[in-house]
């Protein structure tokens, strides 16, 4: 692939633009912005990754991961602003999941300790953790709202905050992890995963690509469940005060 061929691929941007214009879909502006942003962002990342790979310096790897976590926190916290201390709770969650996954991968020599492996895998793990956090926070705040009576009932009968929040918490953890588990059930049948397809296109041995893809699938399963569980258990205590009274976000 070179820049000339890449320029030719812009045909795939022109097709929806033409359709949008013809059918008055109103997608032209957003499509152009999305295209320009993706070109700039990915090319910038490409050059940065090239620099980090060449530098072979762990400081740059650390810096890249810190930036990823920072961006993920910034994005996910918008969905949980009503939960006290959500920023540091997200930081703890993302750092924990990163340390856990890289600790296992590097500790057991499953992947080499080079930027070429650490950064892309970290990106996938943190990115998925961010999406899971958003799904979890969305569901958790709506569960708290819809099950307020039930939560107070359990408190009124002498239950602890942990017992009172058990059902909304478990329902939110299940709801946020189900899409990951369900998509993994049909993987390879409906569509080939992006990373595996990319490797095959780049000339890698398909079996090797499959093995790496399986590694990522297993990683993402851990990421999904651990993210929801950690975020849930970090979040629920802030919903109660020291008198074990429910202090719902946004309510006085």
């Amino acid at each position, binding site marked *: 692939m070179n820049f000339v061929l890449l320029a030719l691929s812009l045909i795939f941007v022109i097709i929806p633009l033409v359709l949008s214009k013809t059918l008055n879909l109103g997608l032209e502006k957003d499509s152009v912005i999305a295209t320009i942003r993706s070109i700039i962002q990915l090319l910038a990342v490409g050059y940065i990754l090239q620099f980090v790979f060449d530098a072979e310096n762990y400081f740059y790897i650390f810096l890249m991961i810190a930036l990823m976590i920072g961006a993920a926190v910034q994005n996910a916290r918008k969905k949980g602003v009503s939960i006290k201390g959500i920023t540091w709770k997200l930081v703890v969650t993302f750092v924990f999941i990163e340390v856990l996954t890289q600790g296992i991968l590097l500790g057991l020599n499953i992947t080499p300790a080079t930027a070429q492996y650490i950064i892309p895998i970290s990106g996938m793990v943190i990115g998925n953790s961010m999406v899971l956090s958003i799904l979890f926070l969305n569901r958790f705040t709506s569960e708290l709202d819809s099950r307020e*009576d*039930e939560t*107070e*009932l*359990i*408190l*009124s*009968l*002498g*239950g*602890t905050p942990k*017992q009172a929040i058990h*059902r909304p918490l478990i329902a939110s953890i299940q709801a946020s992890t189900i899409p990951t588990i369900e998509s993994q059930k049909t993987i390879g049948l409906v569509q080939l995963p992006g990373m595996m397809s990319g490797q095959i296109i780049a000339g890698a041995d398909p079996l090797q690509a499959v093995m790496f893809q399986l590694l990522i699938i297993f990683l993402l399963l851990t990421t999904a469940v651990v993210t929801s569980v950690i975020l849930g258990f970090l979040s629920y205590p802030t919903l109660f005060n020291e*008198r*074990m*009274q*429910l202090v719902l976000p946004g309510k*006085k």
Partner: protein
Amino acid sequence: MMTKDTQAAIQFSHVTFKSGEQEILHDITGWFPRNRITTLVGPSGAGKTTLFRLCNGLISPTSGDIYIDDRKIESYDPVQLRRKVGIALQSATMVSGTVRYNLALPMELQGKELSDERAKELITVVGLDESFLERKAKDLSGGQRQKLSIARTLVNQPEILLLDEITSSLDRVSQQEIEELIVRINEKYGTTIMWITHNLRQALSIGDYTWVMMDGELVETGESSLLKNPQNPRVQTFVKGETE
């Protein structure tokens, strides 16, 4: 007479409760006598439910003090307080599952089991048949849910029972059944009962004492017969409006 010879189960001293900037309860000072039935009457928005939520420890007063058996409410462990002061709300919220599961909930929260014998005893006390135990709680009628809600609150053997408009949405027959049940619980277990009701006939016939609340204030209190001849002009207007 409602004198100090009767011991206080719950006392309020200049209790105020605010939600944000809005004052829900204003300077409430009064008491509920032990082992008796006290009814709380007053128009909607008078702060009656908020008062109950304060007694069960679901919320805390903005200022003032509440005493349960002469001890400040803050000195109780919240879990112990809520087992001592049981509350059954108008909504009669049920968790998904059978009647037996809902009935056993207070025991489950303590890591214990509710024996079959006790479950049958409680369900019978509230006037439901034993066969109800295996039914889905969501399939119960409004009156049956209220009865189950009371039975569930009784599992903790509360010394004080707060009942929040538990008969307001029920038909006449169900209302009467619950009225009889309240009197029976009071007589059988010596439970102190506070009962919010809109029905002045209920307040007169069931309650030993009455609190009349309006706009977050305790306007008049005394033996239930006060409702026949209230002194406060606002209460006179309210009683007239309710009985006409």
